[in-house]
């Protein structure tokens, strides 16, 4: 399909469209000769208005590290399980990735074949792929080049690269012809659109140059690396369809729409069906986009995309940062608070923390999956706690989740019944959750190296067993009470109501706080064990001054955090803070809305799930995420979708509404646009 599409587009792209043309003619040109003309006319959307509402900005977004890696995986036709990847031939193209000791001396793994580890984006409010959060640098450019070299060799073992059979056995001339055709097809897929005739010529020239520099196999690898560094792969170039301009807006071309959809919903390039829809002009009307979106949201790749969004939303993609104190929390895991002087115990804590961070991440993944798509083989369409599967309410209130062999001590006052921790059954020790007897071993060998990049590296392969668990409903409900989310809002010794409150209000309620006053951080209570007062009391005392109280009291920053005082720095539930009972109750002023009275974090989470402000905020985050740009609160399309989500509370329907909206399907026309 793509080959014929490429041929079609060669003609189109080599004849630039300048100025307005009759829409029917333009439509016919785009779609000819794939389907009948009569169908084409029906397929073209005739605007009924002279005004549509794209986003205010039309940013040029680069592929994020996740998108780059996923796109390469799909381009090569490989699995997400890197263990299934074939070995790349040793062509001498890639820079040696090396393997070594790792910076923490516990042995770093050989760098992963996939995904490639790029420097983190600067991000906007925690989200990748948003205008303003992507910064070019020499180092990033080097890493992209190294990644392209690394992946270039894999083309030779890709099941979808060659257009011919038995490349290695062909005569030189046939090899060259096959390589050239394969590269042209590869480029069209990598660039997610047909090539123009000039682009095709330049690719042929590239191949011929590379063929002089090494063996045919090396030349293919080098050419693939060049294609992966070209702007059409690295950036989502969206120029819109000038011939269908409506006021200040340009509808995206079908090819551009295919890319937008796939990166918004899947974090990767379009699949064959999406390409086919683009080639046949079936991504121009709202209905056509909706049909594709619904199909895509039924695909397993959508789950990965949704998990990725939620990790960025709550920051759980940075779990490698959590570093609670061994002195305080070691005993919870049966580890002495102070290692022996002979240093034999120095590795105990890191040996626990790495798989624990990894477990937190996977537990969050599974929680998101169950809340939005339901537990595998589950009956009915509700989650534990009563909310409907696929709703924000389910995400905010679901009363079951997963416990691993490494995180068992964190759940409950002791540990969950029947989960083995460090080889010892803990049956009968805890009441925080109950375990489904059916063990779910998602992946017996998980490696944490990807997660902990940036702070530590670990090569140890951990066997992590994840058990479905029903939480004690008075202790835990919803994603906000997951240990992963709670541990991020904590210092080494004490949890931080300030960090937790700020993140909750900013990320969940979209309440923005200005910069803190001078020396605010120094005024925060010291993070040292202190039984003479509670964490809440110390925080209140430190933030009651006139310079602090505006945000901490009036805007509810402290109160939002106090709701989670039942959870320590690991997210472990506690009844007491030092010698006193925990007080996690309060009244939360949430923007200009009616204050919310709550008894604890579970109660607050349940009430926030019903808040219009929270639902609006969730929509806002999604809107920025899928469009890659900040959208003003008063944007009519945003407001329409927010109003709808307030009543429907359906995440899948929200995504369908977003990707079929004018914000998503149109781009703002530049003030001046030169011809093609």
């Amino acid at each position, binding site marked *: 399909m793509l080959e014929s599409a490429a041929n079609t587009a060669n003609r189109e792209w080599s004849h630039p469209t300048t100025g307005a043309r009759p829409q029917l003619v333009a439509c016919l040109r785009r779609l000819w000769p794939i389907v009948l003309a009569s169908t084409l006319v029906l397929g073209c959307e005739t605007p009924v208005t002279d005004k549509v509402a794209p986003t205010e900005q039309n940013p040029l977004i680069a592929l994020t590290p996740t998108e780059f890696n996923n796109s390469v995986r799909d381009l090569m036709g490989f699995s997400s399980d890197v263990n299934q990847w074939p070995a790349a031939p040793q062509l001498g193209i890639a820079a*040696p990735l090396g393997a070594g000791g790792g910076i923490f001396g516990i042995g770093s793994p050989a760098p992963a074949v996939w995904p490639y580890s790029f420097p983190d984006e600067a991000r906007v409010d925690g989200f990748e792929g948003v205008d303003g959060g992507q910064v070019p640098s020499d180092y990033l450019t080097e890493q992209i080049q190294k990644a392209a070299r690394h992946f270039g060799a894999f083309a030779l073992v890709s099941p979808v690269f060659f257009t011919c059979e038995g490349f290695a056995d062909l005569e030189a001339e046939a090899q060259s012809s096959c390589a050239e055709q394969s590269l042209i097809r590869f480029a069209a897929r990598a660039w997610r659109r047909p090539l123009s005739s000039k682009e095709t010529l330049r690719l042929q020239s590239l191949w011929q140059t590379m063929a002089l520099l090494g063996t045919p196999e090396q030349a293919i690898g080098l050419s693939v690396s060049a294609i992966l560094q070209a702007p059409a792969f690295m950036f989502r170039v969206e120029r819109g369809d000038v011939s269908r301009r409506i006021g200040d807006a340009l509808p995206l071309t079908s090819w551009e729409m295919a890319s937008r959809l796939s990166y918004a919903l899947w974090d990767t390039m379009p699949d064959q069906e999406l390409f086919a829809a683009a080639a046949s002009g079936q991504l121009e009307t709202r209905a056509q986009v909706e049909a594709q979106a619904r199909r895509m949201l039924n695909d397993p790749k959508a789950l990965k995309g949704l998990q990725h969004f939620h990790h960025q939303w709550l920051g759980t993609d940075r779990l490698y940062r959590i570093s609670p104190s061994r002195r305080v929390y070691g005993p919870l895991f049966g580890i002495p608070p102070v290692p022996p002087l002979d240093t034999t115990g120095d590795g105990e804590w890191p040996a626990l923390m790495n798989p624990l961070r990894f477990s937190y991440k996977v537990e969050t993944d599974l929680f998101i999956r169950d809340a939005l798509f339901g537990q595998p083989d589950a009956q009915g369409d509700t989650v534990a706690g009563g909310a409907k599967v696929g709703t924000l309410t389910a995400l905010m209130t679901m009363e079951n989740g997963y416990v691993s062999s490494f995180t068992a001590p964190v759940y409950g006052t002791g540990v969950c019944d029947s989960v083995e921790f460090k080889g010892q059954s803990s049956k009968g020790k805890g009441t925080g959750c109950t375990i489904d007897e059916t063990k779910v071993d998602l992946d017996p060998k998980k490696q944490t190296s990807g997660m902990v990049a940036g702070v530590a590296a670990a090569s140890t392969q951990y066997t992590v067993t994840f058990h479905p668990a029903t939480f004690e409903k008075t202790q835990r409900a919803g994603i906000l009470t997951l240990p992963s989310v709670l541990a991020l809002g904590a210092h080494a010794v004490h949890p931080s109501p300030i960090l937790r409150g700020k993140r909750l209000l900013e990320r969940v309620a979209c309440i923005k706080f200005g910069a803190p006053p001078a020396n605010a951080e120094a005024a925060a209570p010291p993070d040292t064990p202190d039984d003479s007062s509670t964490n809440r009391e110390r925080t209140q005392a430190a933030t009651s001054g006139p310079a602090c109280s505006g945000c901490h009291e009036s805007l509810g920053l402290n109160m939002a955090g106090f709701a989670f005082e039942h959870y320590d720095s690991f997210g472990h539930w506690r009844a007491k803070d030092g010698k006193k009972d925990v007080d996690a109750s309060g009244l939360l002023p949430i923007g200009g809305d009616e204050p919310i009275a709550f008894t604890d974090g579970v109660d607050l989470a349940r009430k926030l799930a019903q808040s219009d402000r929270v639902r609006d905020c969730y929509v806002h985050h999604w809107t920025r995420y899928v469009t890659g740009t900040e959208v003003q609160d008063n944007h009519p399309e945003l407001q329409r979708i927010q109003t709808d989500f307030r009543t429907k509370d359906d995440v899948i329907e929200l995504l369908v509404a977003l990707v079929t909206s004018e914000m998503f399907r149109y781009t703002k026309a530049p003030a001046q646009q030169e011809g093609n």
Partner: protein
Amino acid sequence: MQRRDFLRILGLSGAAFGVGAGIGGRSLLAEGGAGNAALGGPIRRLLLVSHCHGWTYDSWKIRPKGIDDSKPFELDLTKLDQADWSKPLQPLFEHRHRILPIDALSLGTAELDMDGNRHDTGWVHAWTGANVDFSKPEAAATQMSLDQLIATHISRKDRLPSLEMSINDSGEPGRPVSYDAKGARLPLEADPIKVWQRIFGPSANPNPLTGGHREALNYAWREYSKLAPKLDPIHRQRLEGHYDLVHRLSQRLEGMANLSCDGAIKMPGATSSFDERFDTMVDLVGAAFSCDVTRVATLSLGEMKTDEFGADHISDNVHKGIAHSIYDNVEKHGAMTNYLHRHAKQMARLVQVLSDLPDPQGGSVMDHTLIVWGSELGDPWHGYWHYCPVLIGGDWHFNTGRYVYRPHETPIEVLVPSSAAPDGYSEVSGLPHQHLLVSTAQAMGLELDHVGIERTQGQRGDHVDCRGPIPGLTG
């Protein structure tokens, strides 16, 4: 861990397949490039080191008996009795002829900037001299940082313009202290192996296909050039930012691959402590300088664990458990003094490594290097009042071996503990640290009179001039 494991790397003969211009096998010094060589002088190098939490001024300063610090003074460190040295500076005694501790500055302009996290504000001011861009989600700068400014002038086109690294422990990681021309933070690399791969990977594992890689980059750049005119100006600018760097990478690809150098080192192995990671990075910096792979480097020191400097009995957390309380807890003040002492020992080792490395120009690498050791704060309590950098090396420009003191007379009010001023603010502060940045830039051959803020006004309306170098450091 095996230290300083040298490996001779021989350059390949020019471009293996006849693409591009090769430089292999030629003398490093003959390769020229931009920078001092182009300015007519010898190659100079800059290393910025930024540690966390500032200084415990009372224990850092040197005050021999009988000295009057109401007036400026200078001490000849080569003659000062070791017993008179402060604990945080003691480890540098053996390098006393090379150092120039400056007891004269404040981060006063950071105090004048908008409210914000004082660490973030401090990093931006300390290393750019400019105000913070608070409109960004994470505090960005409004100007290029000192290292990048200097790299722009002295880096070779065929080598790395600069290296940005951090030394991390399990606490706060080293924060970015380098900012590009748009004020964006540049990423740091914490893994010595990856740093090694950047520096020596191309030459240690010679790739006969370097010409092909360069062609791939050039192809990508040409595709950009074809596309750019069709884009609206904002998109064009966005692409330009990336593809300018692609073009630069293409230019240095062969230079890096054809590196010929006696000072190269083998890939580092495992490290298990902050000290080991520091030493490993130092070896890498030394080798990179010796081989002229780069002329500018930054080392951002993350927070050490408390057991690294004997304070684990106080807290597990330097930042929240110790640093903030130095003015109301003598033990914690002592702990942060030890923290500085530990860093000074690391710095002493750094100087020794660079002093032991022969430089292709003659003398040692240290002889041609200027180290600026600073921080993001004046003190661990988040004060900006005493900013106490130490210059090491750069004796082609600075008169080193001295301790330079100037009393605080600048009319910028800075936050101080109540023990120093009842209302929490001192009426005056030290010289704006921008003078340090100017001194550094001038030492590196740049002809300029300001870096970052040129002039400002104190809270009482007094005009403050931030231009020019720190007086009395040269000659």
